[in-house]
């Protein structure tokens, strides 16, 4: 049991921190511009594809740096020449705009790279088991993913709370007009934040691509779960996103390890299991089987009992 717990913990940590890299950009963009960016997961996918193309030419490491920058530029362009023009028509228009961009990215990726899964893999130098516990190996690449995401989290915190840029960003979130009065270029800050958020999503794609597969479906797989993360964490809260990412990562990983069903619960409190009734399928489904819906269940519960999310300040 212990070995399962330790490895579920490690796997949950890797997955949770990956979710954080995606949701950090999303929640920053939302808190600053009030835009729910549906194209965010698409940018994550772009990151993986860019890095794949670069890796076939010059290897993995240049891709790790160049691909997020490219995605950041794409994001900045989307903001500067798309979103900014749509902005004056209100939030609904912005929402629909990003929705359209999401489709556009997915279709473009299929046009350029095709519908197949790309053969994108991590660098050979990380292709070894870092350590083995109870005969199960932990790949070095996963440790590398962990390190990158923790590094990003710390860097984000430092930039936002300890630097001048961070100060301006925080001010622009709550008092955009006043910041503009003080002579700061608020639209430029917006473009920068959008670009930076996109680059973060791109970086997540770069490191997740080899592990989770680089295919046109990769955006939709994480797209919805990322929204769950920022709603649970509280829209606009970086710490909230961090907590919620880990929570959901652990939730999904640990659910897999648990084979108990409602019938087992009934048995434990002395009710005979229902094997024939209309709901018997529901009662006999194990936690491992319903694992994928748990985050959505959590989101519904959070929305009912704490509409601001775990650490958020405003209602969804």
């Amino acid at each position, binding site marked *: 049991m212990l070995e399962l717990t330790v490895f579920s913990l490690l*796997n949950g940590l890797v997955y949770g921190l990956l979710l954080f890299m995606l949701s950090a950009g999303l929640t920053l963009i939302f808190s600053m511009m009030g835009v729910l960016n549906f194209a965010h997961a698409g940018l994550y996918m772009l990151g993986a594809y860019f890095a794949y193309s670069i890796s076939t030419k010059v290897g993995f490491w240049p891709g790790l740096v160049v691909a997020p920058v490219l995605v950041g530029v794409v994001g900045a362009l989307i903001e500067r020449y798309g979103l900014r023009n749509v902005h004056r028509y209100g939030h609904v228009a912005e929402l629909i705009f990003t929705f359209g961009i999401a489709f556009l990215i997915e279709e473009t990726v299929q046009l350029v790279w095709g519908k197949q899964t790309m053969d994108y893999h991590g660098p050979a130098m990380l292709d070894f088991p870092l350590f083995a516990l109870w005969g199960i190996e932990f790949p070095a690449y996963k440790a590398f993913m962990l390190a990158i995401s923790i590094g990003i989290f710390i860097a984000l915190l430092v930039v936002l709370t300890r630097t001048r840029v961070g100060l301006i960003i925080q001010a622009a979130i709550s008092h955009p007009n006043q910041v503009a009065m003080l002579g700061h270029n608020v639209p430029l800050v917006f473009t920068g934040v959008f670009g930076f958020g996109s680059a973060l999503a791109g970086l997540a794609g770069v490191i997740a691509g080899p*592990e989770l597969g680089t*295919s046109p*479906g990769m955006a939709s*797989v994480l797209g919805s779960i990322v929204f769950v993360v920022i709603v649970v964490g509280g829209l606009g809260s970086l710490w909230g996103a961090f907590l919620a990412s880990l929570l959901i990562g652990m939730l999904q990983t640990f659910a*897999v390890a648990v084979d108990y069903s409602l019938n087992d619960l009934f048995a434990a409190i002395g009710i005979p299991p229902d094997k024939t009734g209309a709901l018997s399928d529901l009662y006999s489904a194990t936690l491992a089987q319903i694992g*994928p819906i748990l985050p959505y269940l959590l989101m519904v519960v959070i929305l009912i009992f704490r509409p601001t999310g775990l650490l958020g300040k405003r209602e969804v």
Partner: protein
Amino acid sequence: MLNRRQFTRLAAALAAGLVALPTLAADPVRVAFIDPLSGPFASVGTYGLHQFQFTAEEINKAGGVLGGRKLEVIGFDNKVSPKESLIQLKRVIGDGIQFIVQGNSSGVAHALIDAVTKQDERNPDHRVLYLNYSAVDPALTNEDCSYWHFRFDANADMKMNALTDVIATNKNMKRIYIIGQDYSFGKAVAAAAVRDLASKRPDIQIVGNELHPIGKVKDFSPYIAKIKAAGAQAVITGNWGADMLNLAKAAQDAGLEIPFYTYYAAGNGITKAIGTGGIGKVRLVSEGTMNPPLTKAWSDEMKRFKAKYPDEDWTQPRVSNTLHMLALAINKAGSTEPAKVAAALEGMHYTALWGDKVTMRASDHQLQMPVRIQVQTNKGIEFDLDNSGLGLLNEETVSAENASTPTTCKMKRP
């Protein structure tokens, strides 16, 4: 010279002639391929389509059907969704296509068999014939059988029967883990494994019987940790497509080096992902054979396929049987009318390109054929997979008689 009116008339006549032309005898016999061409199972579907189109070309080169009409296979993307499949089926029927082939996902197959049967019973003038080349839920040729459905792949029970025969010979095998996709096929595989192992080797303990969401799991590490923690000595899985690829990848990452008994762990990048770690460990049950190819005709055909699609492999030899038998049945019936073709297919004998003698059993429309156990290796491989130097070597052949399983089908004939 023509005046303006004459010119218009001439043009109209020419145009009418052009429009009328395609309805002549050269009209191709169209076959609708309803399978995933996008999403997590896109590669399985796309490669399958290529194998069908390639086989159609081979048949056309040899003269086509009905004295010169060509076979044309057209892809319809169903995204492995039963709902999308039914929409595509409507399109197919609307287009006047009389044959559909489908293989990926028994969930889709259940939806299609139902819709096709209703269509054919209610609209005798617009019938379609459903040729299933790969959906292997046994129910499709048992309790849910239909006169309008023919299956060209061995069903999950036949395959598990062969797999468990091999497992049963290993006296040291005591603990087995079953993992599969959470839908009709995954459940059928698990049920067959439990049943067959209980009768052949009651001493083997099933230490895990797990179903995971189909096409949703990207990282199988938690499942691998669970398999390891259960102390399994071997894994049985029916996973296919991305679910098999990711399972194999996670097993490699975690250093889980125990035998895998599988239905579909080859090609589509899977062989490459398993790599040399799978030599002698990964086994697969299938109908055809790549190494040795057995006949020159089959070897040549695989070479021509490889020349046309260098990055792909002929992973589903049953595709060849499906289309060749359809062509034979059309010729035998002298028509493309589905009812006549179905009658011609019933009980049909055919010799596969690799020499196997197969028969379409009339009582349930399940093709009776030899089943093979193949092992992943790098020795004696003439046709490798994923250009990896690794491939499948035939280890054991179960004859058609021994592979056969009884049916409970009560066929309703028109």
